């Protein structure tokens, strides 16, 4: 099956550049999928086909790898991915309460996205910052020693478009 191009020139060029960095093309797969997701929000089948073509590897390889890792999304996600650590140290210091607080406040369950497409709530495993527990990662940014109040302020500032 030949897919029609869904990528911009720039995205195609970036993926080819990643491919050139490694002795085997498939090594560029995870970096390429990160790059696609950065631009498109999630990984659609057509996007994965185009990655396969650009890297010159079978589409099944892209599917196999693309579906293994928790950071890759295959359905649309919110503009802000609110990732609450539910592992041990964070739970000891209130992390899971933060998750329930958000479920209630946003009216969604772990894994779901608000209807305005703004927030996706995700309970995640240890983020490697346990001394700052409880920890919440929003998109790429870590927030430490998070309280309900701090979280509420954070979300409303995101909501009002005032980026931190």
């Amino acid at each position, binding site marked *: 099956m030949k897919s029609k191009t869904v990528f911009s020139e720039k995205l195609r060029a970036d993926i080819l550049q990643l491919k050139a*960095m*490694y*002795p*085997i*093309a*498939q*090594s*560029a*797969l*995870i*970096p390429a*999928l*990160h790059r696609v997701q950065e631009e498109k929000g999630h990984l659609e089948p057509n996007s994965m086909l185009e990655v396969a073509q650009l890297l010159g*590897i079978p589409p099944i*390889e892209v599917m*196999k*790898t693309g579906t*293994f*890792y*928790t*950071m*890759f999304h295959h359905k649309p996600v919110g503009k802000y991915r609110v990732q609450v650590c*539910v*592992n*041990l*140290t964070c*739970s*000891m210091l209130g992390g*899971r309460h933060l998750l329930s607080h958000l479920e209630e406040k946003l009216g969604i369950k772990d894994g779901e996205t608000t209807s305005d497409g703004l927030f996706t709530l995700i309970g*995640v*495993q*240890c*983020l*490697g*910052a*346990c*001394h*700052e*527990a409880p920890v919440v*990662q929003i998109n*790429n*940014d*870590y927030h430490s020693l998070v309280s309900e109040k701090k979280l509420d302020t954070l979300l409303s500032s995101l909501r009002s478009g005032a980026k931190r």
Partner: protein
Amino acid sequence: MSEPMKTLLAPDRNPSLEKYLARGGYASYQELFKKSPKEVVDMVSTSGLRGRGGAGFPTGRKWSFIPEKSQRPKYVVCNADEGEPGTFKDREILEGNPHLLIEGMVACGYAIGSNQGYIYIRGEFYAGYLRCVEAVKEARAKGYLGQSINGKFAFDIIVHRGAGAYICGEETALLDSLEGERGQPRLKPPFPAVEGLFRGPTVVNNVETFASVPLLLINGLDWYKSFGSPNNYGPKLFAISGNVTKPGVYELPMGISFKDFIYKTAGGLPKGRTLKAVIPGGSSTSLLLPKQIDIPLDYDSIAKAGSSLGSAAIIVIDDSNCMVMTAKILTEFYHHESCGKCTPCREGLSWIEQIYHRLESGQGKASDIPLLLDLCDQIVGNTFCPLADGAVPIIHDTIIHFRSEYEAHIAGKCCEQKH
């Protein structure tokens, strides 16, 4: 002595390359290139440096397994997948001190005859990724990496992001992931030293392991061995979290008092609480009870006490915690992270998790306790990689030492603590 140390390894947020150089950064190159590659391997062996990723394998011995001649290129791979619950020391180096890591990887490359390194960094560590990419560029621009380091040696580094999978910290799963595959452990042998990345001989070491090598080169063997005891030398990073007032990453000499570390360096427990148990080396290691922590903090002493220093990630648990819930949370983690390759891990952990959910909701049965122990028994030693073995200690130990809490849950008198 429980005062933190201040070598190049000590956590230091914000060191630009200039500041790093002012602190003596990249000085190890003078010593490194005076020696032959074999002399470097020998020095690392003699130092007794043990891998800081969890298994504590002697680093010099690992390097000595790399064949001198090889048809395929050799590789140096840094394991920066840090994801063992409780562990957050490598992040300090990646975000705060990446040039030290680069310096150590160059030493390894020179010692084993490799010209290419990879830093495999967990996907969530985006800030650390950006900082490492920038540091590699800075190092290239100044000739600390690249075609002609000190006019003697060529070495370059690619920084590679993972995408969320604890199992990729297992070294062979990491190599598969670096080749663009699902991160699932490989059958060993062949070991990575013989056939690793792209089938070439490969050293895989932890971030802190590489970062320890420049200290050794700059300050020499006598200095290095002045910290700790035989088989347990050197300055080392310790991460402490949980119920202590000053959680964090501390650089300390190996062998300080475990008790002092908790009660002095890390500020002790919150007021009015008492110590219930300590996880000494990351979530995969056995619990130590309060009466067991009057020991030196090093590999051998903790092994003697029945646990393991692992990744030197200490989680302090006080009397406000329910041990059944503690075991439940970690079981959920291991089940979530099982790569699915082998049955005892994939199915066994799923079953155990269901039992914990039953206990949590007050539906537990008396037979659940022996059932849990039996399932643990069937998992240990019967899986493809050590992930599932790591899930067992917290289940086993909480049942052995805190059985009454399980019984209370079963009797419907469980703690109020719902997680």
